[in-house]
């Protein structure tokens, strides 16, 4: 952040507060943006000169949850989203799991190069927490007949190499990988870490809550007769089950990074082995991010696909000034001056004006807050403080 000269700080400090101190009524109305422009300017002017009142204003500010709703980054589904994933344990777990994936892939490659027989593939079992603590990798022998009946039943159907994808969430909000770690603000990456055959490791995400629907990325999850580890985050004693083979649509969530580990599978005699014997590839790419939404200084609705590092304005309506935006999945709501409320059902591509009216009266004041609990139920708050609620996605409104 840019520094200011010392004299600026000194003169700021020496400014005398003007007017009387705002009381709890004005401070709460200020925090809720319920004051008139003139009153707000007066309060701000006072706050800029009075350290005591600034402290009170900061303590009286709306709780974090509401702020995050106001500046929607996709619906945050559970209270857990702001607590455990910030834990250093989770972060280290994620890093360890990521490192292990790389190690496994490299190890596989070396093993295959050394000409190890494919008849008895080792199964690496990854559990981020356990492994993080023990720094070990469990290995099991899996006998070929038991391995993947589906796979062995129709090996020729797979056009390419057997690919087991491992999706890692390494981003700030994405939580973590492996060991069931990971949940982001914009989506969810829960977690199972599994080990599939001798080939690869699959981290997969059951979305534990309402993650915004996103174009599903189809992830091939080869499960030979492998071990799968699943369980809640931080569960130490992991279950080892039979893995399954299926294509799983993966919510894009807020994952920043996807690491795919592809390895040959000689044990399964799949085409993978035939096409790329002894070869592994580690590929890293950026997964598509759930967009974050906010309103710019100039009142334009803007969207970020990189977690807020860069923002791009989104054309909602000509000449409209916006003050609040909310999202629930691909539904985006933007409210602003003169009671203007716009809705997009396709993630901001197309917008339609929504009339907020009830009993013959339409909302004409500025909208300062838009909150939607789900696609149907929402609340719009005007600068006067009055609230309008809808329970049918904006078709009808009720004034409160």
């Amino acid at each position: 952040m840019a520094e200011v000269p010392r004299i600026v700080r000194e003169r700021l400090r020496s400014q005398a507060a003007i007017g009387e101190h705002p009381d709890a009524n004005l401070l709460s109305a200020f925090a809720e943006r319920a004051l008139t422009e003139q009153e707000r300017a007066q309060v701000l002017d006072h706050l800029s000169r009075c350290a005591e009142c600034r402290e009170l204003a900061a303590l009286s500010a709306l709780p974090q949850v509401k702020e995050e709703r106001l500046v929607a980054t996709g619906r945050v589904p559970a209270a857990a989203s702001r607590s455990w994933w910030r834990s250093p344990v989770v972060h280290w777990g994620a890093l360890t799991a990521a490192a292990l994936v790389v190690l496994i892939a490299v190890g596989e490659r070396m093993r295959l190069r050394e000409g190890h027989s494919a008849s008895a593939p080792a199964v690496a079992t990854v559990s981020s927490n356990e492994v993080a603590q023990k720094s070990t990798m469990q290995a099991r022998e899996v006998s070929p007949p038991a391995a993947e009946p589906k796979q062995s039943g129709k090996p020729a159907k797979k056009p390419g190499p057997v690919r087991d994808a491992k999706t890692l969430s390494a981003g700030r909000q994405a939580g973590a990988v492996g060991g069931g770690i990971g949940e982001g603000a914009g989506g969810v990456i829960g977690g199972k870490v599994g080990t599939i055959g001798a080939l690869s490791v699959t981290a997969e995400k059951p979305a534990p809550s309402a993650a915004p629907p996103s174009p599903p990325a189809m992830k091939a999850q080869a499960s030979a007769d492998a071990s799968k580890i699943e369980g809640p985050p931080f569960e130490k004693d992991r279950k080892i089950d039979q893995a399954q083979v299926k294509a799983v649509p993966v919510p894009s969530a807020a994952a920043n990074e996807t690491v795919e580990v592809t390895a040959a599978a000689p044990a399964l005699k799949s085409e993978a082995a035939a096409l790329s014997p002894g070869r592994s590839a580690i590929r890293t790419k950026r997964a598509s991010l759930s967009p974050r939404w906010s309103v710019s200084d100039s009142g334009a609705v803007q969207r970020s696909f990189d977690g807020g590092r860069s923002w791009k304005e989104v054309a909602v309506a000509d000449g409209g000034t916006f003050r609040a935006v909310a999202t629930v999945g691909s539904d985006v709501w933007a409210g602003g001056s003169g009671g203007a409320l716009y809705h997009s059902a396709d993630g901001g591509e197309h917008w339609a004006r929504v009339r907020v009216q009830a009993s013959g009266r339409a909302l004409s004041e500025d909208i300062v807050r838009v909150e939607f609990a789900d696609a149907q139920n929402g609340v719009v708050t005007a600068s006067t403080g009055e609230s309008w609620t809808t329970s049918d996605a904006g078709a009808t409104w009720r004034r409160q």
Partner: protein
Amino acid sequence: MSGSAQIPGPQPPARRIRASAVSELYARSRAADVDLSQQEFARILEEIAAKYLLAGAREGDALEFCRGLRLEELALARACAAGHERAWELFLTRYREKLYDAARSITREDSSARELADSLYAELYGTETRAGRRTCKLNYYTGRGSLEGWLRATLAQEYVNRYRRRQRLVSLEEKTEAGAQFAAADPPPQQVPDPRLVEATDAVLAALAAEDRFILASYYLDGRTLAEIARTLGVHESTISRKLEKVARAVRERIMDELVRRGMSRRQAEEALKTDVRDLSVDVTGRFSQKGGASAFHRKGSD
């Protein structure tokens, strides 16, 4: 900070709102559900309108203003203040947990949060009496913002007051035991800056928008984070980040311009604004000089 002080200045005479309009507002407030009469409600509205509106305000303005109030919450708060049982039941159902949550978010610690919230409860209920009348803090709620927001602000005020009170009462021994250290002597007086620099800075700061000044003060004086400032202003953190960067740069440039306008050369102005050594509160000259006149180096032939 006084609890009853207000930004709007002179107290205008109370103004009347048409009976039909009062009926409409009364119905909207559901004051009847909490046993608040229409006359009492009308009196409350007039009192609040008189508090915030200027004397010359028309009836239409007063009505519009009253329509913008949180009428239902206002009726509930005032009915509680009047001691109506049903209102209290409703209040406790709706706000008890919220009050504890707000206290927790302020103190960040469970036991002190409970203590803080309980102390406010006592004041809300009105255990104290003044001139034979029970004083209830809910009488101060005017419906400008939400009742929940008002409770949060009142809690914050109570918290700050308590904290200051405790600070005043803690003895020096306790402070020392707690690890506090006390300065041995006053620091040497700072060098008085060039009056032109002071004037230029004051002029630039005075010309800034109040919000910009608020952001500067919050960040550079109070040490608040971007997220905290953003939360206070109800905007996104990225907005504050951009704004702060812009304002800090602009302030510097404008002060430079002001200094040049006051007769300094560009180089002098830059020199005056340099933040490196001057920003350190270190008496460089004093530090380099040896106490007792001892020389740092031996003089030739002094041995």
